[in-house]
């Protein structure tokens, strides 16, 4: 029984360490771009395991509004035809270039939407890459490794406590 528990804690620790290691696997980047008319929103839906790095560019424009929405907010925006009532993860105005990290609260699908600030047609371009480590996998790895190590320590402590019982 004790050896089975020991095996399980080793397995859990290995799973945790694997998640920590795989969170450093590079995933490449992608970069769509298009024109967007005033009063409309255009953008792209993408998956994210952790925080993302975005590089947004716009050419010959007076301003470009950028919104990052989670999946629920995206479907709500698509349903209502408006971003009203949504809570974007990020909302900024870009004049020519923006480069930064967007914190992703949990793994899943997200959308980045663009709309011109003023009455004009604007070209937007976004490069999305995923900085390492992938925070989603890294956090899972930390929690699972901690659980495994805690289990190992508990078993060790329990083993030490049992030795005097055997000697008695």
């Amino acid at each position, binding site marked *: 029984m004790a050896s089975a528990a020991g095996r399980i804690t080793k397995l859990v620790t290995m799973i945790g360490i694997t998640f920590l290691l795989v969170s450093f696997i590079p995933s490449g980047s*992608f970069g769509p771009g298009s024109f967007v008319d005033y009063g409309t929103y255009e953008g792209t*839906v993408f998956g994210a395991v952790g925080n993302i790095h975005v590089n947004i560019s716009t050419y010959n424009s007076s301003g470009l509004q950028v919104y990052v929405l989670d999946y629920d907010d995206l479907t709500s925006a698509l349903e209502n*035809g408006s971003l009203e009532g949504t809570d974007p993860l990020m909302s900024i105005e870009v004049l020519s270039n923006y480069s930064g990290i967007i914190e992703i609260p949990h793994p899943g699908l997200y959308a980045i939407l663009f709309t011109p600030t003023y009455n004009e047609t604007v070209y937007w371009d976004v490069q999305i890459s995923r900085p390492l480590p992938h925070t989603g996998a890294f956090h899972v790895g930390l929690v699972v490794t901690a659980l495994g190590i805690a289990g190992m320590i508990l078993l060790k402590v329990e083993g030490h406590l049992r030795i005097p019982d055997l000697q008695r």
Partner: protein
Amino acid sequence: MKRPPENLREIWELEFNQFYSFPVVEGIVAIFLAIAFASTIGIFGSHMGVYIEPGPTWNGTAVIESVSEYRRTVTASAYASSALGFAQILAFLIPLFLASTLAGRFEDGTLQTYLSYPIQRSTLLMVKVSGVIVVLGTVATFASLSMIFLFIPGSKDAFSILLVTSALWAFIILLTSGTTLISIATRSGAATAIIGIILWYAAQMIAGSQATPSTVRAVLNPISLASSYVAGGLVVPQITEVYVGIVGAMVVGVLALTASVFLFEKVEI
């Protein structure tokens, strides 16, 4: 005449402790998780354009449907992509496993020791073969499921998952049964490993060739067909072809296993 084993669990435990001790299972779990994670983030390289035109005429139903379909496809593609990655490593791992747990045991006399106990030959063989199938199948299923549940939240297409999982298990059964036959025929660990690896990689190449009849392709690699079906793409196979692949691989696997049991009863140990 040997009586049937009284406690099958004891034979299982003996087999598990001898061949699946630390860090064999843990190492496989780590490898499969890494493959599944790489496949999942690989699928995340895709993206889909969306637009909103605010106004009284706006109807987002079509866009919502395509976004939902995109999410369903991403989940199914990630799961299928993991399974496809596993197919490559399984063609290497299964011959190595059976070379170690079965063929190599002819050489070092372990099988003789095992059979000096009241264990039927067929039971011992089934324990060894099912050990490989259950350990690899469970780890592969756990690894790919954990990725889609951890990293792609939301509803999952149960049919797609079930189809790919069935194809994965059928493939494992086919490879394990075929390699078991090689193990018993050669009775050599090295020969089993080399012949098995070459044979299964050659089979994958044959399965990938368009010149091969579709039924043979489906049976040799049911995972590839099931993955193409659930992930979509330019050429999507018919569902009947996928079923033929899964059932065909299982039938061939069971036939190979029956032949292995028959041969194992006759072979000199």
